[in-house]
């Protein structure tokens, strides 16, 4: 089998790892939490990084009126289907072996990934801004506006006494690698065509 085809097959299969690996992580650090608390975001759930972390995050956040971290959202139902679909599509494309289709799959992945990131941002925005009226503690910024507790999309940010860090985890890296392999497949296929 041609190298490009092998690359595309492998690339198409890698997103399957999202079913066994977490995608994203948000970690909160503060002096009185020598062991940071964090949540791992999977395609179908948000889970404790260490036992009881989500319970403890919710407990802290309730003082400023934040909602609990959701256990059920539509995305948890949609994402697994989307992942299966792109894997199947990628395998079909690899089977067909058309160079341009490799690029098309990569493009689809970029678009879907962007939508996913946008959705994630939306949730973070809502999570950080939609505060209960009855919150016990209400902080405002210099201009008198209520403080938002939105974690960063990627990277680190101070939120009151917490340093919040948001970074991709192994599942996301598997996904990126799969996308990269499809791109590699595209370039290899071109070289293979030129050689023949």
């Amino acid at each position: 089998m041609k190298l490009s085809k092998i690359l595309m097959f492998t690339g198409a299969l890698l997103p399957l790892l999202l079913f066994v690996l977490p995608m994203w992580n948000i970690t909160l650090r503060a002096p009185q939490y020598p062991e940071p608390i964090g949540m791992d975001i999977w395609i179908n759930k948000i889970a404790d990084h260490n036992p009881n972390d989500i319970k403890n995050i919710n407990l802290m956040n309730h003082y400023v009126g934040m909602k609990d971290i959701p256990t059920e959202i539509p995305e948890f139902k949609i994402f697994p289907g989307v992942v299966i679909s792109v894997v199947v599509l990628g395998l079909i494309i690899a089977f067909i072996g058309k160079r341009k289709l490799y690029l098309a799959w990569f493009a689809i992945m970029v678009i879907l990934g962007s939508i996913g990131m946008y959705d994630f941002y939306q949730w973070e925005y809502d999570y950080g801004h939609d505060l209960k009226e009855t919150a016990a503690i209400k902080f405002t910024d210099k201009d008198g506006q209520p403080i938002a507790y939105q974690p960063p999309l990627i990277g680190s940010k101070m939120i009151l006494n917490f340093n919040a860090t948001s970074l991709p985890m192994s599942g996301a890296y598997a996904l990126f690698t799969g996308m990269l392999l499809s791109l590699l497949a595209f370039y290899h296929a071109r070289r293979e065509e030129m050689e023949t």
Partner: protein
Amino acid sequence: MKSRIINTTSLLVGMALLILAACTPGGNKNSGAISGDLAQRSFVAPGEHDEFYGFISGGFNGQLSVIGLPSGRVFKNIPVFSVDAEKAYGFNEETKALLNTSFGFVPWGDSHHPDISQTNGKLDGRWVFINENNTPRIARIDLTTFETVEIIEIPNSAGNHSSSYVTDNTEYVVAGTRFAVPVPQRDMSINDYKGNFKGAMSFLKVDQESGEMNIEFQILMPGFDYDKAHPGRGKSHGWFFFTTYNTEEANSLMEVNASQNDKDFVAAINWKKAEEYLAQGNFTTMATNYAHNLYDEKTQTATTTWEKEVKILDPAKCPGLVYFMPMPKSPHGCDVDPTGEYIVGSGKLSANVTVHSFDKMIKAIEEEKFDGDAYGIPILNFEDVLAGVVVQPGLGPLHTEFDNKGNAYTTFFISSEVVKWKLGTWEVIDRKPTYYSVGHLMIPGGNSQEPFGKYLVAMNKITKDRYLPTGPEVTQSAQLYDISGEKMELLLDFPTLGEPHYAAGIPADLIKPNSKKIYSLEENEHPFVTKSEKDAKVVRDGNTVHVYMTMIRSHFAPDNIEGIKEGDKVYFHVTNLEQDYDVPHGISIIGANTSELLIMPGQTETFTWTPKGVGVWPFYCTDFCSALHQEMQGYVRVSDRNSDIELSWSLDGE
């Protein structure tokens, strides 16, 4: 107070003062010797951890405190034999049973000799055992929770002092008796003591999985006072050694009448032989009654089992079970070196430290070279078992511990010093003063085959002017020495709680990783647990009311209760729903005739309240738990006995 030991030796102190006055030129204050470099060696920087845990008995406070070494900082005072209002120990419904005895609920104890469990003669950090002297008991403390989980009463014993030492593999925890008594107890003339009173040596078998103890057998010894003890180790594993005094069998003015014999004994007990006799059925079963109190971590509740009999071995009828080795002058400490060869006896009234040899003892037994017997127990010849004598190392030798380089360290109460000497050559290597009148000493692992010869802690009986004064009662004083070099170096003075009667030390790494952070709420099987706020409720059963309450940052559920009536007995069963490290909550209510509860995450505890009058009575969280701790409060409405107010409860109107 400290006066017990002081009383028994007051004559000696007087003598010592004369001698000190004669021998010591000028003052003996030694604080000038602490250089900056020495201070660094006991300094543990902020946020750093100590290298060793120390478990120091609290004597008359009945507890066991946990300290760090080399800093000497106190971390926790584990309640063991005395009630502790701070932790509701002995006050809440869950722990009351731990203090049950055949004499009823005993709220106080005199805790003495902690000893850490061992495997193959090495510290393993599973449990620490400690004895209670006054109402004879042995406790087991779990070193994952640092809580007392078992207390077993010792029948036929009185003055449970030669206790609670463990064998090489924690097969047994051993408890001797300091005071001989009639066994079984009966009404008889005290003057008939001689020949009639007995000393029961108890061997408590330890279940290696659960740690649960049971009294496997007792050996009924002659009516001497059995003062201190230590297990054989390594080659002498299978033997246990006890010092005795009052072999005179006096029963009055003991300070004179029990000090007449030139030599008393070290009793050598072959417990493997005892097991053989037991297996052969060569024992009698004595009816008795004693409390066996066990705390179940699942139900978070202690229960008492009343044990009704004990197996008794009579040494006169069990040849080879016990031998007596003469030891000069009312020996106190009975310490066995890490190799198991040397048995060090410290004759309190002797100027020498006498050491016996295990090998020589075995040889003498095999050759049957006996010098008569005492109540059927063969007495070996002093010269046949003698390994050596440390000649005139100090005055009033009490206890000896060992390092890992073949050295022994003995405390001298009267001359107030620690003396380092060499095993085998018996030469004195170094001596350092203590402030003042040292009793016990401790080297981490110094009571095992593998001592960690870095630090030595001296626990002093007299404090006087060492710290800022606090009226007539001053703190207790301990001193830390660096013993890693040829000469000992005083690093640190630090105060301790109660009156330490011994300590046990262990490298922190053997315990720290196992220390629990929270109790799992999921695994909580307390009969009155409330696992979520929606399950919170109040249930009436006649004049008894059970409140199933939860606590979490920063509220109780329910926090409004109505329908309680005057004369009701209200049980507050309170569950801490937290699952985060170091987030305990507390609770109490106005007029409660019991202590607060201090409840760890995932734990359920219960207190009772009998309202004395109608009204609306607040309760609140007693542990500053969170930013809104002050808001963590609630009300109970108490109505007239004949009121028709229905029982109701709510949180935020729901």
